[in-house]
């Protein structure tokens, strides 16, 4: 998927389904004790990952956060590799030492999934500056939550990127909750895109449930960055179907909120559009869903069969030669 190829919306649909089924499987594996610790699921936010990454070139890079399974899969990580990482197995993307919060693949330009809120933003600015200093027309994207717009690195990164006109695109996934708290309990704004204004860069509000809208907005911001016109801040209005992490049943949400958002489910929305365009029927849709489910189940089974790493083999991960 590149920004020069024609949009393959059926592939986006399949990838969003893959992310949804992956996250559901993670829940199941967690309940079974195969995945431990914590994990932060992204059901409901699939269009943000798939639409944004569809606007990237293969040589562009991204950083993201601990709610990052969607971006890793959208950027092409095999579900088996991701499952194995979540299970702490040697065949995981980070050899099993990273876990759920660190799904990275440098060969795909997925250069960092961070467990510290806001930490990925300056890293993306640095990657973007490396491109600019070398005269390359590559772009860095960085994904983060609404909660990250209150931490210092958000403001430091936007400020530096603007002063230096770094080719970076800042993408807020505003899912209405920073951990357990609604945005308005912690933040004096509903529209976080306004936080671009003090830094003199464009701030754009995007319907994060509509993969076409996401892709169009990111494509424009990427083009602007690639042309040397500097960074942008995009606010994806989206929703987290699950709680913050495995231990959070999200009982703080008002009645009916989840149901209202599910009426605009990103996968269903694209399904309707594809049906209208004659690209998807009830039959092919079901066949596709079954195929994705079978693929996810098989990937999880293979990951479950993989060995654990040894501490000895992780020694070389600490220091580079």
């Amino acid at each position, binding site marked *: 998927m590149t920004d020069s190829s024609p949009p393959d919306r059926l592939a986006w649909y399949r990838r969003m389904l893959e992310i949804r089924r992956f996250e559901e499987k993670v829940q199941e594996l967690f309940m079974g004790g195969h995945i431990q610790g914590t994990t932060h699921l992204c059901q409901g936010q699939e269009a943000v990952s798939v639409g944004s990454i569809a606007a990237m070139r293969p040589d562009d890079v991204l950083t993201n956060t601990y709610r990052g399974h969607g971006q890793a899969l959208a950027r092409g990580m095999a579900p088996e590799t991701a499952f194995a990482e979540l299970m702490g197995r040697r065949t995981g993307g980070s050899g099993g030492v990273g876990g759920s919060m660190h799904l990275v693949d440098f060969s795909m330009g997925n250069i960092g999934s961070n467990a510290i809120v806001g*930490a990925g933003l300056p890293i993306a600015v*640095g990657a973007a500056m490396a*491109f600019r200093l070398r005269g390359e027309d590559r772009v860095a994207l960085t994904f983060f939550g609404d909660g990250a717009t209150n931490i*210092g690195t958000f403001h430091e*990164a936007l*400020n530096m990127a603007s002063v230096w006109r770094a080719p970076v695109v800042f993408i807020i996934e505003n899912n209405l909750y920073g951990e357990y708290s609604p945005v308005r309990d912690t933040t004096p704004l509903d529209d976080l895109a306004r936080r671009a204004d003090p830094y003199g860069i464009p701030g754009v509000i995007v319907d994060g449930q509509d993969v076409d809208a996401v892709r169009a907005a990111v494509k424009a911001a990427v083009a602007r960055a690639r042309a040397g016109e500097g960074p942008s801040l995009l606010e994806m209005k989206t929703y987290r179907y699950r709680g913050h992490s495995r231990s959070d049943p999200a009982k703080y949400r008002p009645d009916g909120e989840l149901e209202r958002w599910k009426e605009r489910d990103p996968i269903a929305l694209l399904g309707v559009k594809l049906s209208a365009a004659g690209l998807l029927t009830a039959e092919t849709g079901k066949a596709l869903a079954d195929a994705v489910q079978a693929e996810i189940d098989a990937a999880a089974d293979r990951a479950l069969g993989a060995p654990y790493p040894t501490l000895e083999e*992780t020694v070389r*991960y*600490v220091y580079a030669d």
Partner: protein
Amino acid sequence: MSTQTDLAPAAVGEPTELTYREAINAAIADAMEADPSVLLLGEDVATAGGVFKTNEGLPERFGRERVLNTPICENGFLGVALGMSLMGLRPIVEIMFADFLPTAGDAIVNELPKYRYMSGGQCSVPVTIRVVSGGTGRFGTQHSATGESWYMGQPGLRVAAASSPGAAYAILQAAIRDNNPVLVHEHKGLYARKGIVSRGEVAEVGRAAILRVGRDVTIVATLLMVERALKAAETLAAEGIEAEVIDLRWLRPLDLPTVRSSVERTGRLVVAEEQIHAGGWGATIISELVMGGQAFRTPPRAVSMPADLLVPYSPPLEDEIIPSADAIAEAARAAVRE
């Protein structure tokens, strides 16, 4: 008596006399000249030669993109340096005062040293962090820490301390070449000191230097304490006490073998440190030697800063709180005569 070149790696360049400040400038310039991926960034690094004038001529020579002024946001620009390093650059970051390191605590503790590990070894993080450390400058309580031991317990980092122009040059060359994040502490009281520098010399990572050989007592020091330890050794020599002076140079990795083999000969140890003793490299060395079964003829001693005081502005008070050559000599004397 030995000189530092006895145990340091062989010099490849023509030795010249430079100030500590000039040696740092030369190390940066030589690295930038040799490798286009090296760049320098930090607050005011490209303006008026930098706050401590270590960067004079660099922006003119290498351009203001490779000598890059940053806003005042240590955590942010260390994250930027990390991102640059992931994409193949080798940034040198200047931290204007060591006291500002904790404002970048996330970058220094959670990001730079852990990034490679969390990726399962997919990347490396060649970032050099130059830290202006230490007292004697009358800069007051929040601008005078050495901070040298704050991060020495962090796996994934390397930590060095430069005591002289020659050491500063060679350590910086090693740090810039290293594929890991390295904190290099400079001492603000040393910038005008002169010393012999071998252009092209690259320090061995984790190797201390024995600056003076002696049979009676081992004194281990870093930064400004090294020249005070050498001065103390002169005083002691006049009294018939031969002190061995070790410039530790690296706090992570710690050169325990060099210290241990010295103490095996002298049987006595004094650590001289511009920091409180608890939680520092001096305490770690003593702990490691004791745990390793090292026998001492007299108990190890520490010449450190008072455990429950902070660095004052008032000039005579600042002078009093930082260990003097006399205090180091007295501790060594007591160790020998006990």
